[in-house]
C-alpha cells in the first residue's frame, strides 16, 4: 500500500528525472536507456522477427522519444506513449522492406457447404488452453505458428491480441479502416485456430 505522501514523493522524483532527461543529462539518459531498452527490444523482436531490424527500430524509437520528450504530456503514461513509438518504428521498417504487402489467407479459413453449413472435423480430444500452456515449449511453439501467418494478418493479430492495442489505434497505425481491422483480426484468429488445432487436440509438442 502506498499512502498519499509516498505517492507525491514518487511522482515528484519521476518529474525530476524527466526534467533531467529533457535537458539531455548524460547519466540520466543512460539510466533511462538501460531501464527501457529491454522491453522495447523484446517488443521490436516480436514484431520484426529479425534481430538487426529490431535493433534499428529501438534506436529509431529512442531518437524519436528524445526528440519529442518536451511535447510528451505527463498526464498520459510514459510507457504507453513509448510503446506506441516502438510499434510505429517497427511498422515503418516493415513497410520499407515491403513486408506488409497483401497476402492471401484463404486456405486457413473455415469452410462451408453449399447451404452455408460449417464443415468442421470432429474433436476427439479437446485440451483447455491451461493444459496446452502447461507443456514446456508451448509458448515457443505458439509463437512459431503465429509467425507462419501471412504478415499483413500476423501484424493485426499481434497488435490487437498480444500487444493489446485498440481497434482504433491499430487502424490509425496501419492506415486501415476500423472495419477492415476487425475483418483482418477475425480472419487471423480463424487461421491461427486452424494452425493451433493439433495442439488443442492433444498432440504432443
Amino acid at each position: 500500500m502506498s499512502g498519499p505522501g509516498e505517492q507525491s514523493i514518487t511522482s515528484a522524483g519521476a518529474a525530476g528525472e524527466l526534467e533531467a532527461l529533457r535537458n539531455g543529462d548524460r547519466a540520466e539518459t543512460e539510466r533511462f536507456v538501460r531501464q527501457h531498452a529491454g522491453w522495447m527490444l523484446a517488443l521490436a523482436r516480436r514484431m520484426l522477427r529479425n534481430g538487426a531490424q529490431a535493433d534499428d527500430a529501438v534506436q529509431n524509437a529512442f531518437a524519436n522519444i528524445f526528440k519529442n520528450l518536451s511535447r510528451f504530456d505527463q498526464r498520459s503514461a510514459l510507457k504507453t506513449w513509448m510503446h506506441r513509438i516502438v510499434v510505429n518504428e517497427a511498422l515503418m521498417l516493415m513497410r520499407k522492406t515491403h513486408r506488409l504487402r497483401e497476402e492471401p489467407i484463404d486456405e486457413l479459413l473455415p469452410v462451408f457447404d453449399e447451404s452455408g453449413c460449417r464443415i468442421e472435423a470432429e474433436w476427439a480430444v479437446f485440451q483447455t488452453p491451461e493444459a496446452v500452456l502447461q507443456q514446456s515449449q508451448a509458448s515457443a511453439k505458439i509463437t512459431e505458428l503465429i509467425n507462419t501467418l501471412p504478415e499483413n494478418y500476423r501484424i493485426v493479430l499481434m497488435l490487437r491480441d498480444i500487444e493489446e492495442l485498440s481497434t482504433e489505434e491499430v487502424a490509425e497505425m496501419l492506415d486501415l479502416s476500423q472495419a477492415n481491422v476487425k475483418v483482418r483480426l477475425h480472419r487471423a484468429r480463424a487461421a491461427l485456430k486452424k494452425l493451433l488445432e493439433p495442439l488443442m487436440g492433444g498432440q504432443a509438442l
Partner: protein
Amino acid sequence: MMGLSRKQMRRIHGIMFKLPLMITCEVFEDFILAYLDDDLPPKQKFVFELHLKVCRECQEYLRAYRASIELSKKGGQADAAFAPGDVPEDLITAVVEARKA
C-alpha cells in the same frame, strides 16, 4: 440425432437454418468478432445465440476460436525468446552516443 453422420446433420441444418430467426453457419461466422466484443445489438445477439444453441459445429468452432485467442495472447506474451532480457551493450552505447551528437 444418434447415428446420423455429420453430413446428414448438415443436410437437416441446411433446411432448419432457412427458418425465421435462423442464420447459417456462414452468417454466424461474420458475427463472431462483434459477439465476443459484446458489440451486437440485442436482436442480432439473440439470433447468434439461437444458432449457437442448435449447432454443434459452431459450438465447437467457437470454443476452439476462444481457446485459440487465449493461447495466442498468453503464449505470445510469455515466449521466452522475446522476453526483456540482456540488451547488447553496444546498442545502449549507440543510443546514448546518438543523443549526445
